[in-house]
């Protein structure tokens, strides 16, 4: 039996009692005095209603919406490192909703809408920069896919359209739209609502707001095992079982509900509950240049060249690429990535040869066979998953957290996440997002 206090979603989300609300006036008033802690530091207790494994943006958003929308506050978020140290701190912070399938579009559209007002909801400026998103097409086939996406988007009321080279040049003058490149730019899918956001701020915003509502955050607390009783597998784990708690590097914690929000490590955590997920973990590499004055007003993506690029408010260019082809937990990255990336960026913008790469890094992506997530309840009672986000987990965090919180609290799977249940792999109801996700950022 899942013993979670249930209540109807309130009309208005609960607002936390912040130790100090943020505002320009408060900044001036406080002056040089330090601010109180952004989240409270508490001792790890031995029992909670809900334990969320993974202190990234998905885990924290889930905890926040459990507290704010459902009044469930006896929640602990556990992370083996520091908050936002995984994919949440390593992604390229692009937000968009121009997906390929109706399910995907509806889902990410909700996410973009939540992102747009997140700064106000969380009382922390996540610096969402709505600057437009261009997915370039370098071939007839790619252009056809862009048109397809545009049609699906428009039908769902999402602002996307295919534009030609002249319009591309007008929007992003730095792009070479001539016939000269090896793969000339033939057109692009233009998605005005897309943009970038300060990814770390989203993590801190959710953590702070959740803490204000009573959620506890425990860093450096690694989950070593999950206790399940009555399951059909070894040790009573697996399908048919009921979660009873977790064993951590800092002691045992009992909880009837455990939520797996661990991205690249998701299959390892699920295995602790006796579940096998159809997920393989691949690194995705990214890099950043030295800052220069603003010249790139939109997010630019090229699927065929495997690159996406945006310029942050700090002036740096942030690049990402496709996932590495081989499955590994190694985040060492490669020289080949930097070389290919630079080559592809210069194909798009040949004038950037003197810009310098400052830093490269990798994150881990939890890839599913259909590039769509696994979210919701599982065959182990009380064990919920919010994983399989692959290369676009960050974009989905608000809506995933909101919907999963509803799923846990109400016991019913909301329509928006219904297509993404784990059992779709057994039932053959895969959701096709490869077209939008191949390098779709």
């Amino acid at each position: 039996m899942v013993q979670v206090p249930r209540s109807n979603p309130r009309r208005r989300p609960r607002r936390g009692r912040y130790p100090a609300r943020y505002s320009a006036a408060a900044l001036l008033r406080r002056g040089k005095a330090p601010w109180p802690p952004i989240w409270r530091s508490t001792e790890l207790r031995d029992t909670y209603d809900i334990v969320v494994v993974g202190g990234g943006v998905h885990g924290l958003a889930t905890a926040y919406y459990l507290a704010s929308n459902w009044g469930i506050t006896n929640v602990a978020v556990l992370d083996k490192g520091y908050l936002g140290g995984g994919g949440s701190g390593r992604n390229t912070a692009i937000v968009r909703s121009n997906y390929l399938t109706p399910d995907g579009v509806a889902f990410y559209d909700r996410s973009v809408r939540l992102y747009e007002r997140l700064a106000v909801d969380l009382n922390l400026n996540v610096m969402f920069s709505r600057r437009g998103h261009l997915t370039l097409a370098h071939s007839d086939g790619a252009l056809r896919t862009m048109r397809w996406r545009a049609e699906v988007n428009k039908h769902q009321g999402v602002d996307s359209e295919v534009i030609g080279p002249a319009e591309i040049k007008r929007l992003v003058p730095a792009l070479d739209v001539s016939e000269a490149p090896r793969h000339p730019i033939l057109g692009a899918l233009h998605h005005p609502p897309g943009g970038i956001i300060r990814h770390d701020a989203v993590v801190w915003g959710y953590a702070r707001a959740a803490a204000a509502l009573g959620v506890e955050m425990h860093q450096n607390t690694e989950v070593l095992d999950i206790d399940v009783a009555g399951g059909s597998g070894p040790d009573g784990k697996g399908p048919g079982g009921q979660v009873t708690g977790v064993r951590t590097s800092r002691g045992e914690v009992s909880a009837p509900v455990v939520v797996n929000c661990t991205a690249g490590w998701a299959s390892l955590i699920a295995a602790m509950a006796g579940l096998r997920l159809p997920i393989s973990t691949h690194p995705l590499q990214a890099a950043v240049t030295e800052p220069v004055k603003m010249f790139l007003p939109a997010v630019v993506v090229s699927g065929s060249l495997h690159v996406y690029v945006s310029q942050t408010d700090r002036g740096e260019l942030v690049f990402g690429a496709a996932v590495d082809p081989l499955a590994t937990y190694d985040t060492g990255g490669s020289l080949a990535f930097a070389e290919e990336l630079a080559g592809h960026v210069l194909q798009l913008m040949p004038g950037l040869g003197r810009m310098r790469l400052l830093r490269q890094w990798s994150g881990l992506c939890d890839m599913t066979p259909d590039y769509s997530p696994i979210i919701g309840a599982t065959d182990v009672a009380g064990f919920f998953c919010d994983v399989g986000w692959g290369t676009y987990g960050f974009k989905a965090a608000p809506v995933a957290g909101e919907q999963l919180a509803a799923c846990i609290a109400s016991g019913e799977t909301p329509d928006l996440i219904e297509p993404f249940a784990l059992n779709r792999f057994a039932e053959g109801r895969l959701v096709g997002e490869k077209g939008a996700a191949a390098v779709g950022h």
Partner: protein
Amino acid sequence: MSPLGSGPGSGPGQAPGSGSGTCLRRNDDRVVPMSPSRLPARPGEVIDRERPLTFTWNGGAVTGFAGDTIASALAASGCTVFSRSMKYHRPRGILTADFWDPNTLVQVGDEPNVRGGHRLLEAGMAVSAQNAWPSLRWDAKALTALGGRALSAGFYYKTFMRPRWLWPAYEKVLARFAPGGVIDPASAPRRHDKRYAHPDVVVAGGGPAGLAAAVAAAREGAGVLLVEHEHSLGGHLRWGTKSERSMAAALAGAAEAAGVEILTDATVAGRWEDNWLAVVERDGAGGPERLIKARAKVLVVAAGLIERPYVFAGNDRPGVMLSGGARRLLNLWSVRPGSRAVVWSANAAGDAAAADLEAAGVVVEHVDARTGRTVTAAEGRRGALERVVLSDGTRLEVDLLVTAAGWTAPTSLLNMAGVRPRYDPAAARFFPAEPGTAEAGTVLSTGGISGDGSLDELVGHGEATGRLAAARAATLAHRLRVATAWAAPVDGPEPPEVPDERTPLGRDPHPELYRSSTDGIVDLSEDVGSRDLRHAAAEGFDSVELVKRWTTATMGSAQGKLETVNTVAVLAEATGSTISEVGTTTWRPPFAPVTLGALAGRMFEPLRISSLHDLHVAAGMTPIQAGQWIRPEHYGDPAAEVCNVRANVGIIDVSPLGKLDIRGPDATDLLSLLYVNKWRRLAIGAVRYGVMCAEDGVILDDGVTGRLGEEHYLMSTTSSGSGAMEVWIQNWLQTEHPDWRVRVTPVTDAYTSINVAGPRSRVLLGRLVDDVDLGPEAFKYMQVRRGTVAGVAGCVMWRIGFTGELSYELHVPAGYGPHVWQALLAAGADLGVAPFGLEAQRIMRLEKGHFIVGQDTDALTKAPTAGLEWLIKLDKEDFCGRPELQWALEGEPGDAPDAVPRLVAVQPTDPSYVPPEVCQIVAATPDGKERIIGRITSSRFSPTLERSICLAQVEAVHAGPDTELTIVDITGRRHTATVMLHHAHFDPEGERLRA
């Protein structure tokens, strides 16, 4: 009593508004060299006074000498302010006078973020300050006025939330404060080469230990590449005493004599598995920046030490300099950095700086940090230092403060090899945790990064390290030769394992000096102060990674090389923990920034053309880029080309078609694994169509494969999929079935492929082929023959028909392609033969209802969607995609949601309306709205049928024949269309191609 006195007016402070000593003036930014500070010629200087170079600084002319850096030339001309800080726009001067100087980044022509402390001066350079005068000057002032109160790190996270509509305006203002120079996207690309190197030993760092290591390794017979970050060898000896300089010269001479390859102004930017190194040679006489990809057997890291700034009030004021910066200015470029100085020193380098300055005529107050006296403030006005305040209250009127607070070991390359840095409080710096143990001893370290010692001790350790590196490289080289013994015989036994018997370098005691009792700037690039870090810790950002992200400390141009340890120290102080407990952030590549141009090099991506390309051009083709290939889309009128094929005969160049030659006893097993259909009973001389699916049952590729012999097949794949399919097949062979005796050879380019299609194709081919009976009974549809075409032996002929006509696909040895093509045109002139292009072929295949993988199928289209149930054989052995396909074919009807799409032929009601490809197909929902139920995947106007024809994917329930569909045009208009019985719009029984 201080020699400098302490009364007002006795110092060299400047009158307000005079601009004296600064080169940035209020109304124009041109340089005003008020107090040239170049000294007369001195021994050891690296400038050539015979070669003056004139350049411009913010538009005004300045003269330096060859050998000057941009910063030293400007400093010599009296410039003290080189930039404005990122957030508070505070004036900044020279700090380190080398590559890592955070304050001397400048714009040079169209190149942003040039390291002014490192880049050598060239005549005519147009140098300007970055971030110096923001165009929004009033904003800068406004924010700076607020700065002390509200501009703490992360302030932007705490404001601008409301009103939401105003945020984009705020954002624009914030973006104006982005640091960095200006990139001109229109600037001309430069051509960068790359080089591959396979040295035995790479030594990173050309100081005394690195030089000694390189010499010793080379004398042991190793091929050595020595990479030095600076413009010349010697490390810290270069700005040292006469004897130190002569030692550097001797070592450099020995390196040259020993045959060491020496790269200066270069850096080892990154290190990956098995010593895969990125070595970057910066712009120079050899051309633009160059990436050298080196596979070293042993890497010796001798990166030396980087001097650490000290944190106190005013520590970012121009006139506050590190001891290395002062000594470099003085001893390398003969620039006197000030006239009255406080030298606050905790080590020998600082003591030497005091002595050097005094010798140069600077009035020096030497404050010994080892006695506990510290600097608490550097005060002044208008970007100039006027006064230094010490912890005992002493106030000294000076224009220069030199600090020597300790060192940071740049352990990045070792960290990339898995060596963790470990803090030693007694020596007040981090050391590699276990030097010499990384990757079984193929990564070694020496010099300052490893420890301290006299010059002799450093050189001795370097030599021992070099010998060890050479021995280990020799062992590795032997093992590599053994591993490739099939190529060349191996002589001699493996050299004996050499143990690491180096005498470790000692560690000099050093006081832990990070922050004074006052607060100052910790990260000068990012304008992050110690107070910001303390506040961040108080706000709950209690780990170094969180603090880094919240404050952006260590994220600037030096990537933490100057800032990380101070950040850690301040955080440790704030959280009541030790530096060891806090630890450092992760060092990531590159060690120093690398241009995109150098990383990219030249593009190695060929443009592929068939052997017939010139003939197509001569025939007036309209080209189309199809993947890597340039192909004829048409020769003027695709519809006429279709009609000619249907009525007479046409020829098309299909050379890009992927072709794989498959041989071996297990070839049939391979085909059975890859394809969803059966291959065991394919007769020699027969051709079969096959489809390959991925493990998830999704269609990957299709094509025909012919059996040429008992153990010999020729497989064709789609043109676009040929590369990926070869990788896919090799993946199966090499990872799952390495025991199979089968060889797969790509022969796409070995053959020129020509399809001869049309009712007269048999007659045409008969005129050119003597040794194959082309009769309808002798050479049936879906058979393969080998023979001679137009005198060219070894041609493969397939009788297949993508166009739906009687047709033969000829695979001709590529060199004879043009001959056969021209022979076909000549022999068939009376038959009406004409070339046709890709567009005509696409129209004809659509008339026949043949799908194209990737266009009519997508990443979710399983074989049954495309109507391939008849092809999938579940009664054969396991094949790729089988479990998924079995479920799709045999699953309970209730399992299959009705949303699974089907590929169907569709004809619009209006025969003249051609719906654009990817138009959506919708159906009304019970609530009066519309739902997407499918899309048009291919559409054309058929010249044969004189009407529009389509293929579409629609949900199964809407896929029945005669179902009426609603197509939504791109403009939103609705059109009706009907689902057809067959995929083929034309000749559904296939009578023509079987003729």
